[in-house]
């Protein structure tokens, strides 16, 4: 399957082509070129998936993973070398499909959405760059290759968030996104260093084939009470947590919504943000040998899920709501991974569930974002207060958006229901406490999504005398429809057959007790939302007033951003950087200058020696001579 390399090279070529020619190309041409490239890429990805999954399974019933391409890029030591290659196994192939699909949709969608924007060509170049990086990330054969593309997606994300580079908010957001994820990547890097130091390999296949190696290699090595292996894996997870916006590294994602909406759909909803999940899944066998790290993962995921869900309930910017919803949903996947185990298929349900949810979520969340994009395109605002009653003006958007909302709320038969149900089942199986916790979060999800939905499409009947919102053009609605279709049918894909913790086929069966509960919770939440937001009324305001403190805190995202701001500006800048700079200029440099100044000073002070009088000269001459004689005599005797 050597052709898979073109899945990477094609977007790269597009990036270079569009990036270098930039304004020499007509915007239209650039858009079409980019889209065409992506189309071919998607086709290749689908074909790969087809070829891969239709392979004969081996004796253990596992689809053998394939490495069609591997090139030693940079050799560090005998054992350690960075390879650039393509590693195909069920999850990477699944990711290929997801990424290319969403990316293609976004490419098409952007033709309409970004029409007439300055820097259209650049936009497509960056999209191609992102696609390439993300694809490279998922097919990485080794952890360092993943790190490379990990950084590249970070940069593409930075560039795309800051696409409107004249907008201060966009600049700040892009910077924030990059630096926060960079900080997390530091953990990732250190984790890699520790891991590779002990295991002497970067290679995923080797790492996951003998996951216990790390325990034996690091035998006895502990640091602050935890084994080095745990540290390494926890640090690697930190990288993932940063990319996947887990609490407390989530702060960049809501701000990242300053980028163009299709970008949010692609990067900050469907693909890049799930890289963390993918990373944990990729190294899952290794994680399984350190249960304490898995517990950490579960806890972080659960807290994030609840936190994000609560915050999402009170946001007024529709993209923010979606962003928090994304965080919450990713946390679901993380939790699912955290509760899983690779001992057998059943224990490993969470793994499968997580991947399944990743897949479905990518589709419906992309759909939501693209829908939101269409709405914003129509009303030229992100604020809920500017919207309401749009269902009449934008029927296609309305329907597709509703489908997505239903999916995310976990209403059958939409895809979200199936995947979320598997997750809840897995969590419930592991721990009832987390199970209930996650169910509550699922309820909150349904609530805030329908709050959003009702606020946009119902709420009031706008009299749009000055400006009538209109349905988006075909280039934009087409992707919506496609994704909505996928959302409708994706739940019925026999996902467990293809992806599971040990590769053996797993037959998905619904745990009806869990499913029923979650459906009931969801329906209740939707009803509540409908009660509050179907028609314009004062109830929401009243409720907000009633819970003023909580509401404000939630609206301000529980002041996490402020804390960060305090730490970075007040502590790091004011208390570390500025003093260091001062120290450098005045103490270190001052010392160097002092040598010069002291020399000058001494020079000025001793000028009196050269008094100009013959007699003082000879006096010094004589006394000098005598002194020399006297001292030498003293030394001698």
């Amino acid at each position, binding site marked *: 399957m050597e052709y898979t390399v073109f899945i990477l090279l094609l977007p790269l070529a597009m990036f270079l082509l569009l990036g270098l020619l930039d304004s020499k190309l007509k915007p239209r041409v650039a858009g079409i070129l980019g889209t065409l490239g992506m189309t071919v890429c998607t086709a290749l990805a689908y074909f790969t998936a087809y070829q891969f999954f239709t392979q004969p399974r081996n004796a253990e019933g596992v689809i053998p993973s394939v490495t069609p391409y591997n090139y030693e890029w*940079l050799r560090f030591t005998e054992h350690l070398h960075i390879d650039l290659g393509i590693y195909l196994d069920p999850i990477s192939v699944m990711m290929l499909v997801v990424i290319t699909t969403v990316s293609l949709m976004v490419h098409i969608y952007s033709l309409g959405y970004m029409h007439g924007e300055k820097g259209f060509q650049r936009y497509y170049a960056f999209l191609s760059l992102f696609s390439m990086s993300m694809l490279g990330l998922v097919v990485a054969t080794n952890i360092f290759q993943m790190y*490379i593309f990990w950084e590249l997606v970070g940069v593409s994300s930075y560039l795309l968030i800051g696409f409107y580079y004249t907008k201060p908010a966009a600049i700040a957001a892009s910077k924030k996104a990059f630096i926060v994820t960079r900080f997390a990547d530091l953990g990732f890097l250190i984790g890699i260093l520790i891991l590779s130091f002990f295991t002497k390999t970067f290679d995923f296949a080797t790492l996951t084939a003998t996951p216990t190696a790390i325990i034996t290699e690091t035998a006895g090595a502990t640091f602050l009470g935890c084994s080095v292996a745990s540290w390494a894996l926890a640090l690697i997870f930190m990288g993932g947590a940063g990319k996947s916006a887990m609490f407390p590294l989530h702060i960049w994602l809501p701000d990242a919504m300053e980028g163009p909406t299709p970008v949010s759909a692609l990067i900050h909803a469907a693909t890049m943000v799930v890289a963390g999940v993918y990373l944990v899944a990729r190294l899952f066998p290794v994680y399984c040998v350190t249960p304490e790290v898995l517990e950490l993962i579960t806890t972080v995921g659960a807290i994030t899920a609840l936190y994000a869900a609560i915050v999402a309930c009170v946001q007024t910017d529709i993209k923010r709501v979606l962003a928090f919803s994304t965080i919450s949903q990713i946390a679901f996947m993380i939790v699912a991974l955290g509760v899983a185990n690779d001992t057998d298929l059943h224990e490993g349900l969470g793994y499968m569930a997580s991947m399944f949810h990743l897949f479905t979520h990518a589709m419906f969340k992309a759909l939501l974002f693209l829908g939101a994009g269409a709405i914003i395109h129509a009303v030229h605002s992100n604020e809920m207060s500017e919207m309401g009653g749009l269902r009449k003006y934008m029927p296609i958007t309305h329907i597709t958006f509703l489908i997505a909302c239903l999916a995310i709320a976990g209403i059958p038969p939409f895809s979200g229901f199936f995947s979320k149900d598997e997750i809840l089942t897995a969590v419930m199986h592991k721990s009832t406490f987390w199970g209930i916790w996650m169910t509550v979060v699922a309820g909150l999800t349904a609530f805030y999504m329908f709050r959003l939905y009702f606020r946009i499409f119902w709420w009031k009947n706008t009299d749009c005398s000055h400006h009538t919102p209109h349905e988006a053009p075909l280039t934009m609605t087409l992707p919506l429809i496609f994704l909505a279709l996928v959302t409708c049918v994706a739940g019925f894909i026999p996902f467990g057959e293809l992806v599971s913790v040990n590769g053996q086929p797993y037959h998905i069966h619904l745990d009806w007790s869990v499913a029923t509960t979650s459906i009931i919770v969801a329906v209740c939440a939707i009803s509540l939302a409908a009660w509050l937001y179907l028609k314009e009324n004062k109830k929401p305001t009243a409720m907000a007033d009633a819970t003023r403190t909580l509401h404000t805190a939630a609206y301000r995202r529980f002041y996490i951003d402020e804390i960060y701001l305090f730490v970075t500006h007040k502590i790091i800048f004011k208390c570390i*950087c500025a003093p260091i700079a001062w120290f450098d200029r005045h103490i270190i440099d001052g010392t160097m200058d002092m040598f010069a100044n002291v020399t000058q000073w001494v020079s000025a002070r001793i000028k009196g020696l050269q008094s100009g009088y013959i007699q003082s000269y000879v006096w010094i001459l004589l006394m000098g001579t005598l002194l020399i004689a006297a001292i030498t005599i003293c030394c001698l005797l």
Partner: protein
Amino acid sequence: MNFLSLFVLIPILMMAGLAIARDMKQIRTVAVAFSTLQLGLAIYTVLKYLAERAAGNAEEMLFQASTMWYEPLNIHYAVGVDGISVTMLLLTAIIVFAGVFASWKIEPLSKEFFLWLTLLSIGVYGFFISIDLFTMFMFYEVALIPMYLLIGVWGSGKKNYSAMKLTLMLMGGSALLMLGILGIYYHSAPEGAPLTMNILEIAGNNAIPHDWQYFLFPLTFVGFGILGAMFPFHTWSPDGHASAPTAVSMLHAGVLMKLGGYGCFRVAIYLMPFAAQELSWIFLILTGISVVYGAFSACVQTDLKYINAYSSVSHCGLVLFAILMLNNTAMTGAVMQMLSHGLMTALFFALIGMIYGRTHTRDIREMGGLMQIMPFLSVCYVIAGLASLGLPGLSGFVAEMTIFVGSFQHTDMFHRVFTIVACCSIVITAVYILRVVGKLLYGAVQNEHHRELTDATWWERLSAVTLIVCVAAIGCFPGWISNLISNSLNAIVERLS
């Protein structure tokens, strides 16, 4: 005659050519012609080197030639290159080439400017091809002194102060170095055998007593370290770079600071492996501080060149840091970092020079939104920034990762902990790079007068593109250069174990 001597000869001819050139056009012609020739020579050397190696020539240094110079002291004019030297030669040639274009419109006294610049490059080339301590040291000093006039005459800001400080501090380093070299020389051979200045022979004799190594190693390491901007001897760098004219900053940060790193291991570590192992921890702490400290300092600077200078402190600190890890991988990383930092920092300074030439300010608070005004320069600046913060696909990443992975392979816990500390710099780097990019290039145009400014001219584009291509080439295809370096390091590393 050995063709390596051409590296010194061509610039000398270039100086002669410049001396007889009459107008700006001729000066440019001469400069471009000779620097291109030199670049060609450098590329030829690399290729020839690779061919020789491929042909199985396993000598430690290739193309050696040695002519007796000062017989009473057994000083030779001895040349020879290994993988590291050829890399550095290539780097120098590239940067000089780019530097010539970056100073296309230098005023006043353009002829003198190019003369001094060429003299500087003679020193650098000579240093990299020498394998005799004396010649090496001589070329080293040849490279230092033109800086004074280049900054003093063509610089800006408080140029007198900076030029003087830079020169004196670097001379301070070379003072230590001279003593170190003399010390090495007088212990270079066992009792009775003739003393020698030849690095390979000294290494072969391996006769420097251990207690002397304790004395000589710090001398040489600090001596070269000052040029490598080692904390706390780095303060010449911010002022010096800030005041220097564009091409000089490029050459200085790009190449001259590499002399420090190169010397550190060609002389200090290679010749005194025992002390290197025993004393490395002291310098490791200092360089570790350099790395983080430089980055932190860069965060709050407002002058573009200061930011870059502190960033250089951080990056060059990483070079020395890696060298001190004393293993093949880390040292390979160090050399790659030299190469990478050389290219990208030259790119930075070129761009800053071009921006400054237009806006007449380097204060980031007084500029903004340059992306709209000079998109080409701005894009290049972003690329340089990304290279600096270690974006994969550009050279910085390759070098830094090699360093980190290599350093972390050290068996000693202390070294590994310090590696992690050094790793932290990548975050801080991101902070200050993005801060600049955000303030300088993005956002609204701060100064309405800037709207009338033009984008890069063709020579500026050529200068920047040359460097970017190199940065990207190394970033994308690091394998061959990494192999080139690490093969040459084997000899050094063997001595260390």
